[in-house]
């Protein structure tokens, strides 16, 4: 995945969530966003998902500019897999139906084929015995894995994950992190925002440190977690790694 962002701005009232953020990264499988709370990670992911329009700036993904108009955005969303913290599954649909809905309604698969794909993905995440259950009957970790399966089933160009484990206890967190590591092993491209530094380090090809709506630094994990990191990055890491 190749990503090129120039001078992205997005303000909410007088507060600039993205304040001229520019970022270049070539041929990266997994990009992990870290940084202080309120720094703009979620806003950036929402822009990349086609859910938020920037006030100014450009986004280029794999060499193609993202056009912030209704139709191209719809096309973009259909090719992007999204797993966000507040994004629930649909409570009135079973785990399997949650996965097949985008396949049938958006991607035009016939129901039998959609069900076969859905079951296949549930199996990969050890969830096939829960196929008929509604989200309320699943644990938090199972729900999040169904959400990942739903995002993967459409065969997206890449996956966006925003703190996929923030609402989970340690055991469930481990389940979900394993699922994400498996994605990396399969060569899936994804962009992930997280506060789990150990995990960021393990799973990232590149890490971007984002604060106050701007990119402070981007590089491989060894660079950001090493001695040559920018002072702001080192200060942040020192603070979060103390605990």
């Amino acid at each position, binding site marked *: 995945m190749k990503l090129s962002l120039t001078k992205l701005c997005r303000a909410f009232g007088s507060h600039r969530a993205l304040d001229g953020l520019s970022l270049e990264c070539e041929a990266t499988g997994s990009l992990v966003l870290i940084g202080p709370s309120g720094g703009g990670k979620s806003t950036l992911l929402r822009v990349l998902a086609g859910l938020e329009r920037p006030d100014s700036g450009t986004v280029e993904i794999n060499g193609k500019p993202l056009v912030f108009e209704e139709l191209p955005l719809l096309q973009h969303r259909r090719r*992007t897999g*999204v797993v966000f913290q507040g*994004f*629930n599954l649909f*409570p009135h649909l079973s785990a399997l139906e949650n996965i097949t*809905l985008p396949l049938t309604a*958006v991607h035009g698969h016939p129901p039998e084929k959609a069900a076969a794909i859905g079951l296949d993905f549930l199996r990969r995440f050890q969830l096939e015995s829960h196929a008929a259950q509604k989200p309320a009957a699943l644990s938090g970790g199972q729900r999040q894995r169904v959400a990942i399966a*739903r995002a993967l089933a459409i065969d997206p160009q890449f996956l966006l994950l925003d703190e996929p484990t923030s609402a989970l206890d340690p055991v469930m967190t481990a389940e979900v992190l394993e699922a994400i590591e498996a994605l990396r092993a399969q060569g899936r491209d994804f962009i992930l925002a997280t506060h789990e530094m150990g995990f960021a380090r393990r799973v990232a090809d590149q890490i971007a440190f984002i604060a106050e709506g701007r990119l402070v630094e981007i590089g491989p994990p060894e660079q950001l977690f090493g001695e040559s990191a920018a002072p702001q990055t080192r200060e942040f890491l020192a603070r979060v790694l103390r605990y």
Partner: protein
Amino acid sequence: MSRPAASLLSRFFFAQPATGAASGAARWCSAALVGGVLVACGWVLLRCSGLRWDWEAVGAYWQLFLSGWRTTVGVSLAALLLSTLLGAGLALAQRSDFLPLRYLAKCWIELIRGTPLLVQIYVLFYIVADAVQLENRALAGVLILSVFSGAYLAEVFRAGIESVGRSQLESALAIGLTRAQTYRHVILPQALRSVLPSLAGQFVSLIKDSSLLSVIGLNEFTQSARNVASYTYSNFESYLLLAVGYLLLTLPISIWTRRMEQRFRYET
């Protein structure tokens, strides 16, 4: 209380405290108890009031009752369908991006909900229907009731649509559903579940409100009962029949919507 008596009581008259589920025996016994008490009370009250039954006089007019009841059923059913369509249309219009449409829907809803049905019937029948030369009273009645009930249903539907959380709409957007698909696959199924109780209430009201159409000379059920009562001086018998006739229509609606609620049940 002694132990066996308590266990007997709980066996025949109580639901499980935790789940709310009840055995068949408990349900039948309890229903029989309530039914028995109600019938006994009614009987005692009637005896004390010294009322004399006279079903023969009323019975002679059964055809009048039946034709009135049929009119009420026909008008109510037609208005039920039409007002559901109107209500859905108004609810969507209120959410439209096209402002004139939105304001029109709001005006309609506020005007109708803020004025008595009786006034609306007079205005719509003697002015509007007259102006467009609509003379069929039953048809006029259906239209008037639909205009009235549609405004209430619009608010029921709007509340239902708004009960679907923002994150659900965003999820729908994120997986690439269009607006129409979002309504069909995400909003409608979730909204339906939350509006069912109010929907049932509104349908029941609509059926009872149809009795006001007698003021435009429509011979519906209430008007027939009133007529029979004045011919026979058997007020009580006529109105008792009237009550039973309405219950025959409204109870199935309540029962049906409860069934549907069960079917749509899922936890959030």
